[in-house]
Every structure is written in C-alpha cells, then in structure tokens.
C-alpha cells in the first residue's frame, strides 16, 4: 500500500511525464507539419522545383563541354544512344548491343549515374521498364528491375528530359546564356545551384535549358557571381 509520500511522488512524476510528453509530441507534430508542407509536397526536389519561378531564379541556356557528372535520384525517362559491342546487366541477365547504333530508354529510373565526355562510368539502380531499340522489356510481375554495367558504356548522346539538380560544379569551356547575356567560358570553374530544366548531352556537348538560382564563374581573369 502506498503511503502519502509515495502518492505525492507518483503524482509529481506523473505530472512531469505529462509535460515532457506534451513537449515531445509537439515536436513530433511540428516535424510532421514541416515534412508534409515542405518536404513531402512534391518530394525532396519537387519542393524546390515548385519554388523556382521568375522572381527567384534566372533563365539559363548553356552549351559547354561535358564535365564529369554524378547524378543520384529518380528520373522519369533517360534516353541513351549507344554504340555497338557493349553490354549491360538487366534483372540479372546480360544484354548486348550489337547494332552500330542502339537506343536505350530507361523508364522510372531510380539510382546513380556517373558519366564523363566519353562514357557512362556508373549506372546502378532500378527501372520499371527498359526499351532497347524500341523493344520494351518489363518484369513479369511488374516489379522494378535491377540495372547495372559490366564496364564503361560508350554513348553518342544522353537525354535526361527535365531534371532537377542541387548543384553542378565543373571546369568547362563554352557558352552560357543568362537571360539574354551571353558569357563565354574557357577552362573556367562553373558552379550552378538549384538547376531545373532540360538536360542533355549530344555532339560532345552538354546542353542545359531551364532555371537556376545561382551561378558563379571563376577563371584566370574573371570572377562572376550571380544569385537570387
């Protein structure tokens, strides 16, 4: 049986637990509100894309050499043009490209891609559907299939369609058209933040057309930094 002191102690502990719980659940509630209003609304990148508009971003189109690019995320469609005698592994099976020019389309790709000007060095992830030379390949149970490379994959072009990138940092040469002002770069370091737009690689050039939030170019005789 509890005596008076024990009861008082219990009440006090119980009361304190109530306060702590209230603070903790308030914290969880706020995290939930942040998640649903800021992060979940369109996904982690979707929130940014939705927020990029004429007031807080610049319209940019660029044509530069191809840097080493590492991309990680979800992409609705990636189209590759691939030269002959190359392989990739799809759902545990080896697939060879025998024609002189092959097309490879990855639908709903989620994973990591790393490429430079000559080849795709890394392609690791899952796809819901693959089209090889217009022939669709799907999993029998409609599950996502694993895709990977055996070695580097030489390409003629890659088209990512509209994508979002947090940051793109490279040393490059070419032209950057920033809202009508054309800037020429020659082995300058370029840092672009929050890019959203058409992203493609063809004829040994990287093309981007879309919106960005900030751009900085650092070269031997120039230093430009623009942000909104």
């Amino acid at each position: 049986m509890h005596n008076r002191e024990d009861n008082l102690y219990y009440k006090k502990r119980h009361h304190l637990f109530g306060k702590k719980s209230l603070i903790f659940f308030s914290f969880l509630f706020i995290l939930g509100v942040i998640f649903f209003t800021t992060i979940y609304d369109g996904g982690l990148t979707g929130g940014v894309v939705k927020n990029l508009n004429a007031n807080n971003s610049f319209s940019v189109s660029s044509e530069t050499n191809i840097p080493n690019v590492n991309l990680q995320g979800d992409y609705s469609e990636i189209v590759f043009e691939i030269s002959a005698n190359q392989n990739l592994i799809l759902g545990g099976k080896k697939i060879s490209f025998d024609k002189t020019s092959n097309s490879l389309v990855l639908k709903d790709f989620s994973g990591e891609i790393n490429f430079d000007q000559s080849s795709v060095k890394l392609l690791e992830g899952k796809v819901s559907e693959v089209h090889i030379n217009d022939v669709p390949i799907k999993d029998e149970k409609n599950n996502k299939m694993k895709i990977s490379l055996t070695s580097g994959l030489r390409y003629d072009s890659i088209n990512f369609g509209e994508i979002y990138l947090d940051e793109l940092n490279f040393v490059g040469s070419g032209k950057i058209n920033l809202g009508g002002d054309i800037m020429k770069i020659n082995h300058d370091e370029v840092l672009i933040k929050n890019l959203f737009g058409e992203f493609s690689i063809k004829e040994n050039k990287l093309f981007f057309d879309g919106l960005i939030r900030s751009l900085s170019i650092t070269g031997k005789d120039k230093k430009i930094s623009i942000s909104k």
Partner: protein
Amino acid sequence: MQKRKYLIKVRRSRKTYFLIYLMDFILISLWGYLYYNGHALNRIALIISAIFIFFTIKLTELHRFKDWWAITSNSFIQSTGIFDKNVREVDFSSISDLDLDQPFFKRILNYGDINVRLFLNETSIKIKNINKPREFIEELQRIMSLNRGQSLIGGEQRKRIKNA
C-alpha cells in the same frame, strides 16, 4: 532587512534540458538545410517552429529560475516557486547526511541530484539536477565542518567565562 550572504547559491543545470535543446537544434538545422537547398519554406510550419523554440527556451529558463538552493555560513536554504514562494532554512546541526543520486547519463554530463537528509523524522530535501553535484557536496561538508569547529570553540570559550 539585511541581505543574506550566501556562500554558494545553485540552480538547476541547463544540462537538464539537453533533450529539449536537442529538439530546438534539430528544428533549426532542418530549416537551415531546407533553406540552403532552396526549398519552399512553408510559412505556417516556420511560425509554429519559431513559437515552439521560443516557448521551450522561455519555459526551461522559467523552470530553472523557479528553484534555488543556497548555503550560508550556518544554514542550508531551499527556495521553490516563483509566485507562490516557499523558502525553507535548515540549520547545519539538523543535517544528518548527504547522498548523491547520479544515473549514468547524468554522470556523463556531470550533473545530478543531492538528497539532504535530516535528523528529524521528515522528508529529505532534494537538490535537483545541479551542475557538479560532487563538488557541491564537498563544499557543503567543508562549510558544515568549519561551522561545527567554530561552534565547539565558541562553546569552550563560554565554559571558560562561566568558570571564571
């Protein structure tokens, strides 16, 4: 009224609110991350977070301010409450022993509780979550033994005067 001279005065350590500060830190870091990465910051979520951070800091400071414990040259004082103040002063001669309650987590952060037990049959006084409790006990014991020593000397002198 003459102001009391406290040899030591302590309040709850801010380490007590470590988890609350951690929550505030997580919220601030999350907002910083979202802002830095160019996310659309929802105004309502931002306001709720700011209110939460403001109130937790304000409440922890009020909670900390509510109670204090002090040592004078001959007594131990406990004060609780802000508006309904309850001050209790205990003479050193009433204190039987002191014990330290410091679980693992509190030991790592070097804060804890001290129970001041009394000779009289009543509840002990709990000094809650103070910083460096071991040092506090040592200091309290030192002052108590000093006080007892002085009382003994005082008693001897009174005896001598009486005999003369």
